[in-house]
């Protein structure tokens, strides 16, 4: 029996069918088969959150997801966060403005997690933001500017 399977799912609004190894994780498929290197990795064991993508709108860890688990699902990666054209998502704008981006390596995961948060809770408090981001480690910012960015984006998106 072949260990390759056809994985079919939507990525950033586009349906994809990819021949992949059945034991490759979504992280490998996105980065290596689809060239979507905006999804990062820091441990590959589900411990750091850097590889977070949205699966049907929910933050999940791509380093733990097997191809069968995402069959038919809608995946959003950082490359799909902004709309078409030059326009950034309000969260991206806010991250840029507040200095929430230092090395930038956790940034894609933070943005996607924050997007899911704001969809569920459009005006989260500081504690709710901290809870929501608590699976995504950052070593540069101390989470302070990231929290400010999410607050700023929430305010703007509410307005």
């Amino acid at each position: 029996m072949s260990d390759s399977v056809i994985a079919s799912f939507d990525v950033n609004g586009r349906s994809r069918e990819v021949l992949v190894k059945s034991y490759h994780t979504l992280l490998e498929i996105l980065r290596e088969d689809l060239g979507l290197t905006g999804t990062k990795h820091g441990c590959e064991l589900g411990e750091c959150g850097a590889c977070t993508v949205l699966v049907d709108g929910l933050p999940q860890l791509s380093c733990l997801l097997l191809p069968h688990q995402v069959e038919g699902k809608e995946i959003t990666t950082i490359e799909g966060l902004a709309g078409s054209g030059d326009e950034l998502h309000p969260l991206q704008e806010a991250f840029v403005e507040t200095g929430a981006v230092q090395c930038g390596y956790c940034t894609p995961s933070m943005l996607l997690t924050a997007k899911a948060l704001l969809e569920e809770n459009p005006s989260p408090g500081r504690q709710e933001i901290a809870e929501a981001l608590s699976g995504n480690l950052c070593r540069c910012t101390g989470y302070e500017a990231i929290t400010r960015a999410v607050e700023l984006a929430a305010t703007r998106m509410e307005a």
Partner: protein
Amino acid sequence: MLRLRPFRYLRPMGAEEAAAMVAEFDGEAMLVAGGTDLVPKLKRRQMEPSILVGISHLEELRSLRSTPEGGMEIGAAITLAEVARDPALSAQYPGYAQAASLVSTPPLRNLGTIGGNLMVDTRCNYYDMTYEWRQAAGFCLKKDGDACRVAPARPHCWAVSSSDTAPVAIALDATAVLAGPEGRREVPVESLYQDDGIHYTTKQPYEVVTSLHFPPRAGWRSSYVKLRRRGSIDFPIGGAAVALAIEGDRIIDSKIVLSGVASHPVVAVGAASYLVGHSLDPELVAEVADHAAKPVKPLDNADLAYTWRKRMVKWLVTQAIYEAGK
């Protein structure tokens, strides 16, 4: 990048078929639901199955409903996040919802299932390491080796039960439905565990947990208090689940279950019985907590000093009793 070794992934049509597949490839195949416990362990080569039988797609494992008797049935593939935010569950079984909300991290809870957390592998910081690390340290009894690295004196595995939800399920007298190739059986969650870090469960490897059944618990209060270093990510290094049936200000029934202190969730039978017939006064609570904590003997195989962890059990039980009694 740390990667998986090759395996085949099978996608059965139902729980019985899943069980049959695992039984057929005896020792070669493993069940996988969310994979949040299994996938890292595969990457670290703590388990080396050549076949994975996926079950998270099975609709029959996705029920979440009240039972006619007033209890609840929760499909094993319901995610921890779904449990944590379900209003009916939080109302009747707050301790269980609380425990689910404290497992690991938000993104992991969107993937990890309650069945998976119930059966989560026992943990030890000589065991939950990569192949290379374990090779350097010397392989342990639980995988590839012939001696326990924590307590080498006798051939017993001391890996620690690290489920947050199991102790609460036990405290609430939940049962689990297990599907085998030839049919199903329903067992108390409490009976799923035994005192052995390797063979920590009485469930057969091929048996699929399809659902959990919680009996009606109107008039009961439950709580779960978790000890860990950080506010997120970490496994429990101690935990206390408490369920109290209270009439007026008197406790008429109680159950206390500990996590993270032995190879199985530890039911503090004697301690809990002290509470019955009394109201929660500080002296009694201290006595009960002391009694519950006394037999616990943590070892140096989890985070922080084991002497401190031992000392914290009493505190955990105290907190959990007050939390439940609120």
